[in-house]
């Protein structure tokens, strides 16, 4: 896991905003530039530009040049940090639930 390159604090505060989450999900396909992305939101170009800057600092998106165009693209490594933690919690509780199930089965068998 390449956690070192990412600052989870920045990632999570960047993801705490609905517009930024939407930008992250649109930019997964990575075909749009800032101006095109800005058209999706009822706010100024400058405001969208600011959101993208926050995402960029968190390592969640990057701007890439394709010929004369500059597109915004999601960096999946950043998203994985948040996903990884929730995955660990899922695993932790799955194992606990398995043990709960075993206990219930055992106690039922003991009664029978």
């Amino acid at each position, binding site marked *: 896991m390449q*956690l070192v390159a990412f600052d989870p604090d920045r*990632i999570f505060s960047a993801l705490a905003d609905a517009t930024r989450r939407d930008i992250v999900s649109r930019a997964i396909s990575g075909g749009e530039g800032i101006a095109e992305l800005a058209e999706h939101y009822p706010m100024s170009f400058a405001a969208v530009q600011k959101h993208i800057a926050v995402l960029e600092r968190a390592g969640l998106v990057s701007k890439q040049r394709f010929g004369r165009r500059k597109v915004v693209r999601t960096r999946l490594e950043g998203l994985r940090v948040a996903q990884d*933690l929730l995955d660990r*919690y899922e695993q*932790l*509780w799955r194992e606990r639930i398995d043990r709960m199930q*075993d206990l219930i089965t055992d106690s039922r068998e003991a009664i029978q």
Partner: protein
Amino acid sequence: MTVTAVRKDTAALTMTISAEFAATPRRIWQLWADPRQLERWWGPPTYPATFTEHSLTPGARVAYHMTGPSGDQPRGWWEVVEVDPPHTLVFRDGFANDDGTPNADLPVTTARVTIEDIGGGRTRMSIESAFPDSEAMERILSFGAEEGLTQAVGQIDTILAEDGVTA
């Protein structure tokens, strides 16, 4: 399959897991309310838990430690927030120092347990784990990596065999 649904919200930082059991809500509640039963499932097989203080009343503090393969004993605590037997349990779940006081350097999550009768002798239990802030996330990430908290697979068979004797 016991686990019926898992929902993870990366943005809200919550993980919700639901499971169904062929048992009554009261039976599921016992798994939380009886410390001797609780300690048979709370910790992974490599880090079994011992609950030294346990009372499910609002404001009460629950204390436990886990014992690792090399004799290390990480400590934890709960602060009980809401109790409605046998349906609702809400608690803050944190780590403790060696003297049992809350460790402020490690994160606190809030767990909401909901237990409901779904008919046919079955009960659904849902647990929502919420991370209060991004700092907490970061600490859990590093703690989880060090302690291998979730790497307890593979020893279930051993536990089952032991349970068969003691049940």
